[in-house]
């Protein structure tokens, strides 16, 4: 009698075990297939990666550092011909595919690229003369020599020292309209490479700060490109900027005259 009463319970346990067994099998049939063999990865740079190779064919003064992603590489080689991408000892880097900003600096050399790394590919980047790149913007601290008159007669040879965010005239050639200690430049913005450049009229009057763009040829050579024209300067001495102090009148001109007087004829 007791055995009869246990039949339904035993049947339920048996059925539960069978169901659990069947559910635990991959195939559902209780028979498991072996995993398929993995395809071999043919990307020699690693999955999803590509390679960039940097080279130049002309000497550049000083050590050349190449900054890309979070890496800094040093390049000392000068090639006679383009290196073979994958079989040379040119400076290279393997990175996941994507676009990268590349910043290359020598003692005076300055160049920026946006380089595209492509999966499985090796690409050469020839940075000689900054071909195809842009010089970008750079700190202006130091002493600058004006190498051409531009629109201001006798101003070739003007020397401007840029320090603490301000470009002050240190030397003025005879007859140049900018006096020593004039504030020639101010409000330099390294992000968009703009500056306010002081202009004066033929007599040295009418001071006006004009918005200008600074175009670097390299670290020590630039053009100030503004309303008055394009004026070239060469850096003749480097000095660090310790702090920025904006003090000068904010470009506000405040005529405040309480009298008049005779003026001589010019």
């Amino acid at each position: 009698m007791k055995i009869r009463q246990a039949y339904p319970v035993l049947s339920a346990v048996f059925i539960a075990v069978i169901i659990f067994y069947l559910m635990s099998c991959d195939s559902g049939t209780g028979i498991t297939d072996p995993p398929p063999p993995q395809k071999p990865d043919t990307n020699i740079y690693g999955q999803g990666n590509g390679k960039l190779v940097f080279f130049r064919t002309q000497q550049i003064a000083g050590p050349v550092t190449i900054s890309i992603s979070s890496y800094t590489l040093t390049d000392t080689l000068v090639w006679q011909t383009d290196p073979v991408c994958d079989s040379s000892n040119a400076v290279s880097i393997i990175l996941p595919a994507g676009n990268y900003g590349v910043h290359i600096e020598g003692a005076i050399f300055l160049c920026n690229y946006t380089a595209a790394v492509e999966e499985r590919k090796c690409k050469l980047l020839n940075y000689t003369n900054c071909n195809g790149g842009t010089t970008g913007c750079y700190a202006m601290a130091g002493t600058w020599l004006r190498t051409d008159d531009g629109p201001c007669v006798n101003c070739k040879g003007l020397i401007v020292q840029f320090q603490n965010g301000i470009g002050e005239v240190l030397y003025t050639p005879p007859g140049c309209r900018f006096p020593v200690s004039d504030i020639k430049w101010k409000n330099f913005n390294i992000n968009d490479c703009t500056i306010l450049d002081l202009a004066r009229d033929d007599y040295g009057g009418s001071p006006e700060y004009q918005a200008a763009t600074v175009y670097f040829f390299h670290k020590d050579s630039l053009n100030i490109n503004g309303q008055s024209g394009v004026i070239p300067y060469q850096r003749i001495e480097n000095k660090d900027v310790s702090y920025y102090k904006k003090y000068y009148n904010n470009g506000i001109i405040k005529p405040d005259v309480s009298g008049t007087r005779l003026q001589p004829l010019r």
Partner: protein
Amino acid sequence: MFLAQGCNLYDDDYVPLVFPDPETGIYYVGRLKTNGNAVYVKGEVINQVQYAFLADGPAGLQIINVTNGENPSLTYNFQTNGFLREVFIDTIKGRYYAFLSDEVKGLYILDVTNPANPVKDSLLSYPSGVNSTGRTGNYLYTASVSGNVYILALDSLPEKVYVINTYSPVNPVKHIEIKGSTGYFIENETGLETVNLENPAQPVRYTTFHSPGSSNDIRIADNLAYIADGTTGVTVIGISNPAQPYFIKSVSIETDIRYLDYSPNYLFTGEYSDGISVFNLFNTSTPDLLGYYIPTGKCNGVHFFKAKILVANGTDGLLITRF
């Protein structure tokens, strides 16, 4: 409009043109009113801060922070208890010194390396005070009001300085200017006296030169000297041979030019009741008026300093302008 109205100047509809204030070429930047009578000013950068050292007559020396020209602020006041006529700043052994010419008390020497806390080094009393000082090498020339120019050796600073010699000018010296190994002494009556300082302890007179005006002040630029010549204007003289200065020309702007400052290619003038002016020197022998500014108060000493024209503005204190 006049045609349509038959040139009726009294037409009620006529609206006169309003012209903006004329720009005069020099622009106001800032001011600090002091309680003295500012007669002379010199700018100096110390510890990357721009200071104006203002000789404020009876109020002594005012040291003013002019880094922000729009908002100058007083850093320190040093009372000389006389009448401070002139201030001369220089560095010796890496320290900044202010030589204060007080026309009543004499010569004060202050260590102003920390402008907020100057230290008095010496007071050299002279019975009738001092008008001006100038330096070459380790020697300071001190023009006493009574006449003698005392030559002090500075190499003993910060210890006491001492007189090593005395020079007797033709007349009492109002202002000393030194360029290279030549001293240019501005004197009453004489005008200009040039002095050979090749042996700085033993000055030797070159000559004297009387400009056409009142010879109030002088600045040297290469082979030329510019003299603040009172109502005669600015007088330009040739000094390529300091033993034989020669007149070139005077340029008048019908004002009373009493003080001068020179920065290459420019000349700045303090004209007492007539304001200040700036001249370009693109033709170095012909100062060409470029701009002027007429504030309230008297305009005495001027100094073009860090693109600012500092003006000792009499009882109105320090005036800062630009051009």
